[in-house]
């Protein structure tokens, strides 16, 4: 087999004769691929295609779907509102202990979501540090409400947005911001009229990832917001519940989430999949 690599270093005559592929690498690679693809294929094979539309139209399914879409969208909006300024702070301001702050931001990324849910309960629960005060001062209770779902989803999904936007901010040419400053733009004007448009693609990518993560959130949601139909039972919770009583419904719900993931992946194709 011969290959030429246009971007690689030129080698002699331009034709590279590759040796035999080492099976030590090829076999595990193929196994790994199968491991990732087969479950998804199983989902498609076992799907009750003839009754699919009918099952999708069931009130509980529609309710869970609507709740998931609404909460994930609100959570994404919250993440944008708080996460973009946070990313800007991390990327542009010489904070003392910036590394520590950045590490803290990424904690929810690696934290088991259930632990996140417990932590949220301890702080925002009715007897939590902040929750107590929220209830007495404003009469607001978050746990086991739709707002609680949004809080749980935003907690888990925000790091995706912050990291993505911070990366975009670091990659953006800061000299445009300097040029704007020499034209008399205050830092807020620079951010609004120069920085934001320049990193808009990064923000969109971050928001989509954030939304996808929020949509699939399970652990923190069930821990902090519970599992009440209509108010806190989102799609992933519904899938889990249906699996025990009505496996075919679980498959249908899973298919919907799979379809959403595929759409997201396709929309981010250029940015993430082909990044290397």
């Amino acid at each position, binding site marked *: 087999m011969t290959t030429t690599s246009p971007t690689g270093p030129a080698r002699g005559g331009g034709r590279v004769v590759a040796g035999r592929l080492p099976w030590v690498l090829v076999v595990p690679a193929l196994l790994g691929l199968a491991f990732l693809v087969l479950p998804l294929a199983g989902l498609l094979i076992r799907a009750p295609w003839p009754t699919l539309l009918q099952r999708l139209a069931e009130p509980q399914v529609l309710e869970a779907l609507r709740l998931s879409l609404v909460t994930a969208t609100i959570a994404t909006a919250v993440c944008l509102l708080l996460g973009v300024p946070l990313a800007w702070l991390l990327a542009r301001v010489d904070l003392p202990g910036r590394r520590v702050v950045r590490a803290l931001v990424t904690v929810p990324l690696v934290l088991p979501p259930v632990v996140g849910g417990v932590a949220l309960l301890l702080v925002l629960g009715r007897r939590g540090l902040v929750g107590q005060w929220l209830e007495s001062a404003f009469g607001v209770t978050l746990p086991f409400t739709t707002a609680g779902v949004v809080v749980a989803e935003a907690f888990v999904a925000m790091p995706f947005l912050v990291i993505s936007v911070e990366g975009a901010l670091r990659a953006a*040419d800061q*000299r*445009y911001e*300097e*040029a*704007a*400053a*020499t*034209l*008399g*733009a*205050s830092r807020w*004007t620079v951010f609004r*009229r*120069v920085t934001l*448009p*320049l990193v808009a693609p990064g923000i969109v990518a971050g928001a989509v990832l954030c939304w996808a993560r929020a949509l699939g959130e399970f652990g923190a949601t069930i821990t902090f917001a519970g599992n009440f139909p209509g108010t806190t039972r989102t799609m992933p919770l519904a899938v889990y519940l249906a699996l025990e009583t009505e496996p075919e419904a679980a498959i249908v719900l899973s298919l919907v989430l799979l379809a959403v993931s595929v759409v997201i992946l396709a929309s981010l194709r250029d940015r993430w999949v082909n990044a290397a």
Partner: protein
Amino acid sequence: MTASGLRARLVVTRPAFRLDVSFEAAPGEVVALLGPNGAGKTTALRALAGLTGLAEEGHITLDGRPLHTEPPDRRPIGMVFQDYLLFPHLSALDNVAFGPRCRGASKAEARRVAADLLERVGLAAHAAAKPRRLSGGQAQRVALARALAVRPRLLLLDEPLAALDAHTRLEIRSRLRRDLAGFDGATVLVTHDPLDAMVLADRLVVVEDGAVVQQGEPAEVARRPRTDYVARLVGLNLYRGTGDGVRVKVGELLFSTIEQVDGPAFVAFSPAAGALYRTRPDGSPRNLWQAAVEGVERHGDNVRVHLGGPIAAFVDITPAALADLDLSPGRQVWAAVKATETHAYPA
């Protein structure tokens, strides 16, 4: 009147580098900071704009007011960056209108000012174009219009022609000269190209290794270089010696000149003023020395011969003379320069 224009001492310290340059620029005057890459010219310009912090002993005064205490967005400056940095998401018109908008003009007013300026630089037809649709020359002119739109008292240009190809460069250079002549504030321009500096500037400030090594009018600097770098830029042979009347001793050699200098002195002559001989010539009084040919290169229509020996020198000869002399590296020749073409001035 002494208070108007720019007076600056720019001091910037970095771990392995220190910039300390002082210069002035009168209103309407164009001052070029000329120097090799890494000399600190761009750092000086950024310090004027407030994008790089000044050390304690630095100061900038513009029209009698201290500038170094203001942040960049409060300084009455306009800056043209090396690669222009037009905002890619805004049209040419909105790029130019950006400054007036930031300084409080209404949207309509800012756009009117911007349209006027684009008209003046001959780009009214490209007002709606995004920067990526503009040629290098057009982008440069939009960048200039954008900098002038804020009615600055100090205009800063960082290598304004470096990003252009040789073709457009010529035309844009002369347009830029006209535009700068029409600007009534002080202008500081940074370049490493002596031609740009000579054409555009009223005064040159030569910066090497973070310090001013020479300043003066372009003609003066070109005639009397004071460092090897400047001598190379303006194409002269330059030596440091000791003057004694109309003679200057450079190492072992004694140069006769037409100027009188005593004490430390520079001697300069043009490579074109030199002549080469295979045997010792007789006749008219000249400065004569024996040299070894180190190399030969093309130089315009002529040939530039690099000489070693008691002094290193360049001498330009015609291709015909090259053939006659049969010069090859290592050959010994006699080099001569007339006294009338040898200039001496105090070091």
